[in-house]
């Protein structure tokens, strides 16, 4: 093994605006929030669950019996968050709280806007602060805020079940779906074998690794010989020429992929490699590409990989020479 080259790293963002369709209970709840109405759902045993869930956690029964509750409640537990993180309800320090709305038997998770941890207590009375712009989402509750002066005491607020009035869940223009954007940031590091491979590619050399057990050369190397389960170590330069073992002609343009269609996506067994790698074929009309075509890499300035492979001008390889690499 040669001295480890400098570790490569790159930011890697996984982000998508997920579109979530809603069941009827969720639709009513989130539409209600838009209309500044807090709904719960009553179970067969008369318990009132807030937020209203579709299925009874105890019996798995389908729940549909909606009730309306006051926008006030009691903190059942809390935690002080001195450093809000991305996406959280408030950007200034706040308390995470579980709030049991008056008339409910269960608690809702949200944020409480309070000046500091010394002003938050279990049992304190809070009320909903509605967001100025509401669209039918849990964030239509901007947060909770302290309400009144007194602690609720042991059985403060409305007793469970009593403050809840039946509600038919019907609103104009109900919300039937929500969009929940989610972004997670990662830092990608490719590991020892791929890092070495990428460093050599930067010098336009294709260097695989040989398995000490089965002697096959892996290109690109992935750190382990997958059939023997041992680390590949001996570095072996392969190519630069190779044989197209098989391919397809891509006719649909993929988003985020800056390649004009049609193009040929090929498996290319570089000379000396134990298996084919994947690349694009150019320098030849797409409909003239064939299995057995001999190719060589074409580099462009600044490219990490060969931009594509083009015919090398050699005669086609016999099927027998590459059929084991298919």
């Amino acid at each position, binding site marked *: 093994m040669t001295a480890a080259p400098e570790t*490569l790293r*790159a*930011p*890697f963002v*996984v982000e*998508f605006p*997920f*579109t*979530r*369709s*809603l*069941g009827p209970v*969720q639709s009513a709840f989130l539409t209600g929030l838009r209309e500044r109405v807090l709904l719960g759902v009553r179970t067969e045993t008369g318990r009132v669950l807030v937020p209203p*869930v*579709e*299925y*009874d*956690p*105890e*019996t*798995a029964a*389908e729940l549909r019996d909606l009730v309306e509750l006051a926008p006030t409640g009691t903190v059942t537990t809390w935690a002080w968050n001195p450093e809000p993180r991305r996406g959280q309800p408030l950007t200034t320090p706040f308390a995470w709280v579980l709030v049991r709305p008056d008339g409910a038997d269960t608690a809702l998770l949200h944020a409480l806007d309070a000046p500091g941890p010394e002003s938050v207590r279990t049992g304190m009375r809070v009320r909903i602060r509605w967001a100025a712009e509401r669209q039918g989402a849990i964030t239509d509750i901007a947060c909770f805020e302290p309400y009144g002066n007194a602690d609720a005491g042991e059985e403060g607020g409305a007793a469970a079940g009593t403050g809840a009035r039946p509600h038919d869940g019907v609103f104009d223009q109900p919300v*039937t779906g929500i969009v*929940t954007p989610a972004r997670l940031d990662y830092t*990608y590091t*490719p590991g020892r074998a*791929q890092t070495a491979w*990428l460093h050599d590619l930067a010098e336009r050399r294709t260097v695989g690794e040989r398995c000490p057990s*089965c002697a*096959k*050369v*892996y290109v690109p190397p992935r750190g382990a010989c*997958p*059939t023997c389960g041992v680390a590949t170590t001996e570095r072996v330069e392969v190519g630069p020429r190779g044989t197209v073992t*098989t*391919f*397809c*002609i*891509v*006719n*649909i343009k*993929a*988003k*985020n*992929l800056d*390649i004009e269609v*049609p193009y040929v*996506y*090929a*498996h290319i067994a570089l000379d000396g490699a*134990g*298996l084919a790698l994947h*690349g*694009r074929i150019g320098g030849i009309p797409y409909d003239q590409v064939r*299995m057995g075509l001999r190719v060589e890499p074409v580099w462009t300035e600044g490219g*990490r*990989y060969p931009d594509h492979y083009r015919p090398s001008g050699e005669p086609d390889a016999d*099927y027998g020479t590459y*059929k084991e690499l*298919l």
Partner: protein
Amino acid sequence: MSAASTAGTAKEPVAVVGIGQTKHVAARRDVSIAGLVREAARRALDDAESTWADIDAVVIGKAPDFFEGVMMPELYLADALGAVGKPMLRVHTAGSVGGSTALVAANLVAARVHRTVLTLAFEKQSESNAMWGLSLPVPFQQPLLAGAGGFFAPHVRAYMRRTGAPDTIGSLVAYKDRRNALKNPYAHLHEHDITLEKVQSSPMLWDPIRYSETCPSSDGACAMVLTDRAGAARSPRPPAWMLGGAMRSEPTLFAGKDFVSPRAGRDCAADVYRQAGITDPRRQIDAVEMYVPFSWYEPMWLENLGFAEEGEGWKLTEAGVTEIDGDLPVNPSGGVLSTNPIGASGMIRFAEAALQVRGQAGEHQIEGARTALGHAYGGGAQFFSMWLVGDRPPTA
């Protein structure tokens, strides 16, 4: 492998007594994720005339969590599936997961850990976009392709080269499966005006794969109630009995990998046949539900699963043997080509095989089906799961 090392008795026979699935569509806009899985689970319980209380454990599977953007969604789904207070296990073996999930559930019964298990698999692909979920850009890797079609198309070309199959075979499979889907009320694609010409003139996406030879992207769920002998004795409808089941895996890419006929698939089938006493699958198996996301995989799997000699699979397709009225019907349900909620697709294959031997397949019932194979695969054609079900319990 022998079980001789302890006094352990033979495995408990496993029966399928309840099957439920959703009407698969491109986007179920009227339900939450919980509502979707619940619908399949409820139908499976109703089929078994069982209640949530009859279920001892839940085994759930799906493909990558990025598809719905929920990490380990079974945690949130526990309430909807009546799992609170019960064991709940989540399986993920890529595209084969629906089959693997059923086998993990079956093992709980076979090992006598539980008597009755609900198993379920789902995907709600409309929450995101499968192309996105399958093609998250990894730094330092050269983006060459998006989606699964381009990944599998070169292997189809390799199959054609190896066998000399005429290039129309893929369209025959697609035409057959789409017509079969018309007989299956749960299938996603119901193309009433399908013709062979339409398939053959559909756009070439990843040459040699045409648009009509690819699977759709679906929202859907499938569930089964598995139980032991005593549970089967109480079953209101005929059970399907598991006669063999196996999983096999091989690496994604390796020197010497045969992408056309992966050894893991051959070994998996051989294990299932051994367990079930099958020596001539072509004659002894009455119906096959195989995982064919791109039409050419039917002839490829016919060879891999031992229904045809190497290089001869396409001849069965061409001769109409795999048609619903042929002597080896393949995918009478319409298959993955007509319905593909990815994580559920394998379980749908397993469930459709069970429906056949229960005589419950409705309009796509194969008359007199007594043994049927359910097959699933995933990853880079590397993960396989299969079961063989019959209308009689296994002979000890």
